[in-house]
């Protein structure tokens, strides 16, 4: 702790939405006033290249990385450039909940501390009947043609999302977008493509499109609080369940390695998890009261997505389908 205080700062790159990130940042700084935290929000597609350049040049940047792109962390790990997590809170979880959920934590290198579930949202001024499911959305194709927002194909999270939809709607063996009826129906609706959750949800709130898939409750609820005409369905009630487990890892080239360990410990601790529970994400701990669920509600990893060849083909076929 003394070493961490001497370092006096820590930088975290995270894909969390801004309000949730700010909550965690304030809570961390309150608990560790000697450490100046810099939390930087970054899409997963942007995080990898940025961190790669930093590690290639040895320039200061991220101490702790939080990304949903598993393949990227595997690559950094293979290069021997992740530091082992040495945190009491992580230790405790490794011996308990992570043991019961193999595949979530990768030894002591990286693991998710929270999980977000994707859902469907719509503009309440433009849609009279709430959307009940993905199947309902596809059945109402004429109502939403040209008026539906979907995520563009960036990284393995979006691929996992589309894969979850096609497996839920077309059958558990469905793996190829070009043979998926549900994805073909979605593509046929002439959707607008968005880079990530927040711009997509904003477009629905603004009325640019009538509805959107791939939103999360934290983002649309924040807009709803401001009076935006937007609503969504509880992700657990959807016919296709998909979420994102963003993993937290420590860079081996971290400028502040000790403060990094303190931050990771905070994220897995009861205090950190209690704050995370207020942001709308599921949390890994089972001893924290969270309306969004604990580790049991977290997304199940899809092993296919760790295979670069599968991912490449999936992306190419999806691109042909949606970009024609």
């Amino acid at each position: 702790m003394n070493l961490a205080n001497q370092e006096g700062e820590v930088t975290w790159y995270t894909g969390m939405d801004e309000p949730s990130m700010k909550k965690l940042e304030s809570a961390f700084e309150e608990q560790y006033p000697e450490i100046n935290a810099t939390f930087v929000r970054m899409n997963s597609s942007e995080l990898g290249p940025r961190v790669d350049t930093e590690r290639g040049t040895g320039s200061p940047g991220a101490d702790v990385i939080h990304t949903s792109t598993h393949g990227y962390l595997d690559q950094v790990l293979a290069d021997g450039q992740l530091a082992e997590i040495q945190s009491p809170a992580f230790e405790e979880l490794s011996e308990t909940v992570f043991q019961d959920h193999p595949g979530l934590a990768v030894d002591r290198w990286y693991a998710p501390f929270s999980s977000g579930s994707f859902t469907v949202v719509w503009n309440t001024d433009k849609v009279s009947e709430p959307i009940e499911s993905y199947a309902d959305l596809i059945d109402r194709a004429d109502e939403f043609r040209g008026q539906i927002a979907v995520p563009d194909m960036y990284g393995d999270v979006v691929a996992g999302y589309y894969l979850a939809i096609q497996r839920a709607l077309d059958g558990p063996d469905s793996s190829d977008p070009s043979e998926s009826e549900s994805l073909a129906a979605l593509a046929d609706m002439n959707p607008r493509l968005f880079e990530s959750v927040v711009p997509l949800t904003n477009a629905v709130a603004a009325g640019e499109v009538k509805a959107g898939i791939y939103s999360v409750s934290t983002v649309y609820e924040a807009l709803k609080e401001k009076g935006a005409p937007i609503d969504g369905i509880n992700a657990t009630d959807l016919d296709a369940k998909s979420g994102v487990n963003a993993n937290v890892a420590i860079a081996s080239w971290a400028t502040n390695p000790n403060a990094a360990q303190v931050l990771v410990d905070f994220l897995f601790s009861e205090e950190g998890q209690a704050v995370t529970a207020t942001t709308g994400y599921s949390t890994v701990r089972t001893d924290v009261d969270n309306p969004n669920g604990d580790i049991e509600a977290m997304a199940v990893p899809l092993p296919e997505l760790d295979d670069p060849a599968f991912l490449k083909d999936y992306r190419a076929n999806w691109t042909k389908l949606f970009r024609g």
Partner: protein
Amino acid sequence: MWIGLVAVLVVLVLVPLISVQAKALLDGGQAYRDMLDSPWLGATMFNTVLLGVGSVLVALVCGTFLAGCAWQLPKRLAWLSVLPIVPLSVPGLALVTSWSFLLSPQTGYINQFLRKAPWWDHLASGPIDVYSRFWIIFITGTLLIPFVYLFILTALRGIDGALIEAAEANGARSVRVWAKVILPLLRPSLVYSSSIVLLLGLGQFTAPLLLGRDQNVTVLTTEMYQAAQSYPVDYGLAAAYGSPLVLIGALLIYVQRRALKHSSRYETLSSRGHRSSSKTRSWPAIPILVYIVVALILPLFGLLNVALADYYSGAVITADTATLANFSTVFNDPDLGRAVGNSVGYSLVAVLIVVPLGFMIAVALSGSSRIPPRLRTTVDLLTSVPLVMPGVLFGAGILFTYSSGPIVLYGTGAALILAYITIMIPHVAKMQSSAMLSAGSSLQDSARVHGASALRTHARITVPLLRPAIAASVALCLSILTHEFGASVMVRSTSTEVMGTLLLRYWSQGAYPSVAVVALTMCAITGALVALSYAFTGSRRHEKKKPKSSVTNAILKG
């Protein structure tokens, strides 16, 4: 000394471009093969050419028309001729952002207004789709109008009024005078400005990046950006996508140099022999004012409206619904303070370096220097290169050059400063060179005859004479660099974020009200810096010693 100057220019200009090529040629040119294998390459090339040619047409037609209007204004309205260049001081990023607020199909303010017309009231969206190829081209064209305007207005002012009077005395009407006398005289300027604007159009980045995703309107620069900034990173592919732009730029320099060899370019662009149109008219004030409303007032309205909204919804803000919460959020974000500090700091350091460098180049290019002809040609060529290469390309080159090897600059302000210096070299050098040509060399010759050393002559005579041009180049540098985006986005790191890249970050997060606040802040800071630079370096006391000079004149002469 001159070899040293050439060496500096080689490091600044050529090394990044060579790095780009070297990266593309790694692994036996695998990156080129990947690029050629891309099923989207044809569409990307087509979009790039269409964007270049289309935006040139928009800029050429509107810019020439506006210049013609400004040229005919009577003296009491002459101040209006400055207005069409004012949009240059607004960051392109801010303008594009604002156009998306104004013209987005469903909620764009202008679209909502247009749908009130009886012939469009049946539409649920549109009639304009800002994300379509046509409107991306049109918006890019509007960004380039001031450049054409500057070129053509100066050329018009250089036309001898007697020629026009003669045509009119022989019974030619206005349209015929334009068709038979004025446009043929403008041909060199039209060709020159359209070639420059074509290059600017081909290298445009902001509009396709921000607006093109929706309908897959990709161009070479956006492909470069995506390859270098998306996981998995492929710098080689990014470099390969930059190669056609390098080739086109090199070709343009060659064509320009051949064309200028036989042209009377300086007669057309010179401020000497300045005459107004033979007949002055007041009506041309109307198109100029309309242009300012469309190109400046409306975008600023769009930004302000969104900045004062709780969330972006397309509703026009009233006193009851306006909120300053977004200003408070953004101004309390330490990232903004850092980005403003970085933008201003890096720009100032770049100015401190590039202005003296530009002065040295101007001396080298002037007839009075004793530089060997071959070196002079080399300096001239190297100075022209950044003008015809997009900023994003130099950004990529600097990223590749200084991310590994003996000198690592990534993550430091030096990488951005280097990019900024390179981008500004042609502007600053040409401005000072033109001012030097106008001033002549008689005073310097006299000083030397009286025994003054070259250094003393420059310090006591040349620099004071060029002070207005130096003021203009400082102002131009600050106005371009404080909202620079193309190069910055390639080389910035978390600690070296500048205003333009911060705006992109807010944009990609969908925080549109924050985007609007940052854009307005950029406009305010750029305006303040330009005003300050004039206050410090371009005081009236000094202007009296020389004919009037300004950013406008200096650019035009260049």
